[in-house]
């Protein structure tokens, strides 16, 4: 399992459109992807659930990736988070 820790710097937090693109990109992988904010979590493939986590600026999130393509998947997610949030 791969784990990514990330602190959100975007003033809008994890917001609709870039989150939607991330969800779309994540669907190309087989791995199970879980996003944690504190003790709340959701499947990263689900846009409204992800938005519902209400991740704001300066929030820390942890993304867990597990599956046969976890390395590539985690790499994509980490890059995307850094560039967009």
């Amino acid at each position, binding site marked *: 399992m791969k784990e990514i820790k990330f602190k959100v*710097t975007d003033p809008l937090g994890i917001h609709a459109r870039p989150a939607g*693109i991330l969800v779309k990109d994540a669907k190309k992988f087989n791995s199970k992807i879980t996003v944690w904010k504190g003790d709340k979590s959701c499947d990263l493939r689900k846009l*409204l*659930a992800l938005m519902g986590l*209400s991740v704001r600026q300066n929030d820390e999130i942890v993304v867990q990736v597990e599956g046969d393509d976890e390395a590539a998947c985690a790499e994509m997610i980490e890059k995307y988070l*850094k*560039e967009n949030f």
Partner: protein
Amino acid sequence: MKIAAGKSILDRIGIGKIRIYKAPSYEISDRTVKDPEAELKRFDAALQKAIGQQDILYEKAKAEVGEENAEIFEAHRMMLEDEDLQGVTREIIREKKKSAEFAVKTAFDTYAQFFAELEDPYMQARSVDLIDIGNTVLDILTGSDPGSIQGTEPCILVADDLTPSETVRLDKSLLLGIITREGSANSHTAILARSMNLPALIQCRDVDDSWDGRMAILDGYNGCVYIDPDPDLLESMKKKYDAVLKEDELLQELRGRTGTTIDGRRIIIAANIGGPSDLGSVLANDAEGVGLFRSEFLYLNSKGEPTEEQQFAAYRRVVETLAPALVIMRTCDLGADKTVDYLNLEEEENPALGFRAIRICLTRKDFFKKQLRAMLRASAYGSMGIMFPMITSRWEVIEAKKILEECKEELRREGHRIGNFQTGIMVETPAAVFVADDLAEEVDFFSIGTNDLLQYTCAIDRQNEKLERFTDMHHPAVLRAIKMTVDAGHRHGIWVGICGELGADPALTETFLRMGVDELSVNAGSVLPLRRLVRSLDLSGAPEWSPEEV
């Protein structure tokens, strides 16, 4: 007569009958169905259609208000594609044997409610999006036509609030104005009003259903609406309205013309822009290219340093859209009042005199090269100028050009195409004015940044209210500095423009022409009025401007 106040978006007037626009509130009965499978099929068909409509709305919005503002419909499509939302809806149909309408209403409302209860104001606002897309699906299921609510007569539309979909769907040819009870200056309604020159009043709390069908004047100058206006007022506002229209027409007649005086002196009038989202206004106002593209927007709107690809995409869009007109791109002018976290700049005692603009770029070469590479790649798609800000010494220009040359070599080796481009500098420090002859030997053009030039020449911080008495926008020192710069440029055969606020000051247009200024770059809305002014001037026999005049 009744008067209601609101926040005006544009200095325009709208006169006509009011039409109250009410979004359909669907009264969906809690109906149990015999054939859930058939309902599931209806839902799937309506969902697919709604998803398809988002693409159409996206294209329509893109044409009306620009790509950046159309992106909401991409987000809408993504929400409609959400598995959970679809799953909940299907479950209500399948398990509870409810109609597709009831299931959609229940599921989408539940999600809207969920977002409305989140603490984050951004997420709360997404509640409107869910209602918006839910209504789109319901419109399709119930076969209702959302366009019919607007009616077929020209009107001033009054609504509590307009969702992005509603705003885009409106038939703009029938709109005399828009009034909403809610809304913000950055709402879709406001953006639309600005890009279509439509009078609009937002946050008008007194909006009332009883206004429907009554005569009204939307007075954008005073931020209010008059219901059942007195005949005298109506008369005088009609006159004002006609004058505004006539002014519009006169300005439109100037489209495609050049800024040439009666005696044949030509001056280029270009626009200042802050990003691709301003392209619409450049085209609408028929500007002769862009004299200042502030490239900071990418840096300020991004939480990490923008990549070369992100920059290239944005620059290319502007250059390609406006080709063959010239686009002058200023390399990033960060520092001082424009800071970003990821640059990790230290706090400074005197930021205006500190580590900013070209000084950052020459110190952090890798950072600088990323932007130059993106600009060079975009140059292949049109006509471009690359301009360095905050120059005080010749060596800075030489060094910046050397880095530019390095980037060119790298890109060529990598097989990228590079177009022809000009290289120039901002003249915005007194030092640059004094050594303008030296600097002119290094570049193809000068663009005078009058805001900073005034600040540095007169030692005046224009944000400081206490200095109002000491601030003279037409200070002789600044005007003489402009003349010195123009003369130095012309001695070396390069063109000289003005891209600061003074460029748009009509009181100085004649002066600039007589100084020999080649180009003015101004906010897009000033392009046509300035063009008209230039075309009305006759300078035959007028002496060349001399410093003794001020």
